[in-house]
């Protein structure tokens, strides 16, 4: 029986009058990779930011394991340590080297000694294949390398779950593969991941479930086979067609 790591119940988010999503339910089990797809502006990024408490939902609850993180008395900073986040535009700390980026949370949040933090950070950099770039600044790294440092930075905190917000959509086509490869390896290692992406090759191969979101609702979710081959709703089929056509070229590159 798989254990749910993340449980979302009845989640609603508004910006002023503008309802981004409403009454949303989603469960992520330990070790699962969930891919979220959907047109622009449907609230995918907002959902991830709610899960990481970077913005507050208006209604509903989120549990991380047994802890309700939307509870009033919940320590946000504590929660965020356990939820890794990877951003579309990397958002590395520009004034720090790759090593410094990965180390910062370890020394300041986890209060590890400099030595221990360095060792752990180097381990994470090696994991994303960048041990030899440790002393490079973000400005000296390619986009793909920057994103891998971003992944290492999140991994270093030993999160229960990793959130990815379109991690490859700011990358040149030839750099997408290296990032997806790191993510695929993570999934194989048993990391629990919630990924917003339009890389259908990745979704097909790695996802345990695909969630199709539109206009603030989850239209349909299912295994890659169900979603690609027997979708229940015409909208799902339509969207998957369009997206596969748009991103189809890259797919053949990366596989």
């Amino acid at each position, binding site marked *: 029986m798989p254990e749910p790591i993340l449980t979302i119940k009845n989640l609603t988010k508004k910006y002023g009058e503008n309802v981004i999503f409403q009454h949303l339910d989603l469960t992520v089990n330990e070790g699962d990779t969930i891919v979220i797809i959907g047109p622009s502006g449907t609230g995918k990024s907002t959902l991830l930011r709610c899960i990481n408490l970077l913005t507050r939902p208006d209604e509903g609850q989120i549990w991380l394991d047994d802890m309700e993180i939307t509870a009033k008395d919940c320590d946000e900073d504590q929660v965020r340590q356990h939820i890794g986040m990877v*951003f579309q*535009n990397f958002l590395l700390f520009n004034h720090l080297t790759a090593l410094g980026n990965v180390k910062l949370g370890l020394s300041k949040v986890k209060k590890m000694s400099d030595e221990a933090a360095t060792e752990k950070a180097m381990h994470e950099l090696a994991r994303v294949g960048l041990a030899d770039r440790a002393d490079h600044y973000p400005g000296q790294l390619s986009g793909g390398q920057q994103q891998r440092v971003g992944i290492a930075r999140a991994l270093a905190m030993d999160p229960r779950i990793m959130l990815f917000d379109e991690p490859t959509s700011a990358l040149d086509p030839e750099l997408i593969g290296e990032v997806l490869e790191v993510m695929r390896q993570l999934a194989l290692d048993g990391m629990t991941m919630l990924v917003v992406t339009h890389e259908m090759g990745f979704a097909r191969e790695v996802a345990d479930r695909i969630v199709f979101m539109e206009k603030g609702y989850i239209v349909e979710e299912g295994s890659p086979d169900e979603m690609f081959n027997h979708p229940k709703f015409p909208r799902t089929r339509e969207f998957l067609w369009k997206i596969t056509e748009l991103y189809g070229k890259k797919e053949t590159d990366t596989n």
Partner: protein
Amino acid sequence: MDFGQFISYIASGTVYTVGVTLIALPSGLLIGTILALLYVYGGKAAARVMNLYSTVFRGIPPLVLLFILFFAVTRGINLSAFWAGSLSLGIVSSAYQMEIVRGALLSVSGDQLMAARAIGMSRLQSIRYVVLPQAVRLAIPPWSNEAAIVIKDSSLVYALGVPEILRRAQLIGASSQRYLLAYLSAAVIYFLLVFGTTRLLAVLEKKLTIPSNP
């Protein structure tokens, strides 16, 4: 009196000019930074107050503000013209330095702050370790400009009787009846101070530049 004595009399005012600057500039930076942090991270009410402070203080001629502060301060406490003048200039400068720091904070903040919070750093830690180190670098060029302004504005304490470069030029100009030479000498010294300072800060800026590929 020979030319050497003439010049060195004026140049000895440099101690006061530099002194005024070294008090006014850092005190303005300290106040300005605190106010900027309040402006950016202190909520709506604080932002409104800081905005008023900035608008009013930057809307009044430095000389007028200097006089108000100087007479207000010396009415309350027994301070020398040098100290009262320097601190008053510091307060004048604080409004300008607040805007510099605020601009730098704003251009770093947003996303970088979010990324820092996302790995579990508190708001204060994020500002301290992620936003400020980057903001400082961005602030150097406009701050260098402000430093030059403060050096030049230090000549305003002339009006308070502090024996700085300009006052000494006036005194020796009067006694020797060679005003042109006296004031030209003063101009040269000021120019060297301003030029040297901005050069130094340009070197610092270059040193602190974060490496990146062209």
